[in-house]
């Protein structure tokens, strides 16, 4: 078993199984036994848990509103599905957030509000990265339509109060790296104040 095969096997095992790859390997009985011992070990479980904790902490710190909304709407399983089933690509926050956003966008159980919310949180991350890079170009800009007052939605998610109903029209959030607060809320084209909610943008 080459070092490359050992490493592929270990990464596969930390994701739960070696899948089809194991069958393609020409393992000696000793190697097979070694991999089986690892597969059966508590140390592998602990390794998997550490990997999942770090990943969960990246998602929770970059998309706290989306995570809270998923929990409130009974979709905790979707978070677990992402953490346990989706391949790990990175140890970095923005790349993890981007992967989580794409996962939610393609998930049949996830509703429009949640998809809009993760787009907002990912947009804030992109805009803050560009703003921190001290570059005047390129800039980042994104416009998102909400079916409820987004400021009320954020408040509800941050304070644990009931979610607003999704029956309002005309709300739009603009995320823009050139704005000092990175985002602005409009209703029917007029700016809605969001000063009490700046903690969201200040993350």
């Amino acid at each position, binding site marked *: 078993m*080459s*070092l*490359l095969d*050992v*490493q*592929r096997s*270990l*990464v*596969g095992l*930390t*994701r739960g199984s070696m899948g089809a*790859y194991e069958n*393609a390997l020409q393992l000696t009985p000793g190697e097979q036994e*070694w991999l089986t*011992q*690892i597969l059966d*070990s*508590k*140390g*592998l*479980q*602990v*390794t998997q*848990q*550490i*990997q*999942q904790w*770090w*990943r969960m902490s990246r998602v929770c710190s970059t998309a706290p509103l989306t995570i809270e909304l998923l929990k409130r709407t009974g979709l905790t399983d979707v978070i677990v599905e992402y953490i346990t089933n989706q*391949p*790990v*690509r*990175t*140890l*970095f*926050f*923005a*790349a993890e957030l*981007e992967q989580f956003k794409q996962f939610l966008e393609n998930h049949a159980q996830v509703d429009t509000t949640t998809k809009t919310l993760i787009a907002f949180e990912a947009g804030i991350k992109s805009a803050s*990265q560009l703003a*921190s*890079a*001290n570059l005047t170009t390129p800039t980042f800009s994104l416009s998102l339509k909400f079916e409820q007052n987004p400021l009320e939605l954020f408040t509800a998610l941050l304070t644990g109060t009931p979610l607003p109903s999704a029956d309002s029209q005309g709300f739009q959030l603009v995320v823009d790296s050139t704005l000092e607060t990175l985002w602005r809320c409009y209703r029917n084209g007029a700016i809605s104040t969001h000063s009490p909610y700046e903690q969201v943008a200040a993350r």
Partner: protein
Amino acid sequence: MLPQKSLRKLGVGVNYHWDFQDLIYTHLDRIDYIEVSPDIFCEEVIAANNSRHFQLDARKLQDALALGRKCPVIVHGLGLSLGSASGWNADYLTMLDNYEEQQPFCWHSEHLGFTLVKNPDGSEDHAGLLLPMPFTAEALDLLCPRIQHLCTRYSAPFLIENTTYYLPHFSSHAQAWDEIDFLNQLLARTDCGLLLDLYNFYCNAINFGFDPYAALARLQFDRVIEIHIAGGVTHEGFLLDVHSSEVPEEVWALLEWILPKLPNLCAITYELLEQALPLMGEARIIAQLDRCKSLWNYYLDCRKELDNVAA
């Protein structure tokens, strides 16, 4: 050139994070240097073809550079994936090249392990945490030229750091080397120094039931340039490397035991996770640094005595 020939003794330091800035500025009389992982000033962009590149956060970097004008800096990398058989993360080195142009550092270090692996179809997987290298001849053959390259790429020397692992049977796979044999061979075949993480080594000793003193007694002591100490938690019977708390008494005892044996030690770093700051509070963190400093002074006294005897 071996690292011990060119290095000055720094003393006691802490890993840098922007959340620690106030604490570090307030206690620059106690903190002799900072250990910086320049990766933390970056985000990673992964393109559709799986290629990776770092995107720098200039504001975070500028804050660290300002602190770097107040005290010496050493580098501790996170993202090279030094041991990946399918190739390390070259973009890390490009990033470190750029960092070196802006921030001189006394030495740089990386972990003995890997995070990235390329699949047969060309795609790349990430382990999601640092995984250990098997202690085999093949791993040694892969690592030595890479480490030698790192020893000469920068004007500052390179140190390799031992890591914590939880997967079993790494010592018994393929041949009879254990972690210390493997580290000694790496040191014999390259010019790198050792960043001895005593807490990591203690975790391995507890988790896999060996005597850390007997094992460490076989280490090539003259190559230890830096020591890491930290604290963590026990989970499912495993002591974890999470840098979340005070250094266990057993690790302080190991430190006191090993210090007089290390002629070329230059620094002791207390490693702390930024999330631990509000949990531990400044006073407890400073108490750890002060204890570290008194052991550093004990170390300097021991060395002086030994040098006098030798003279």
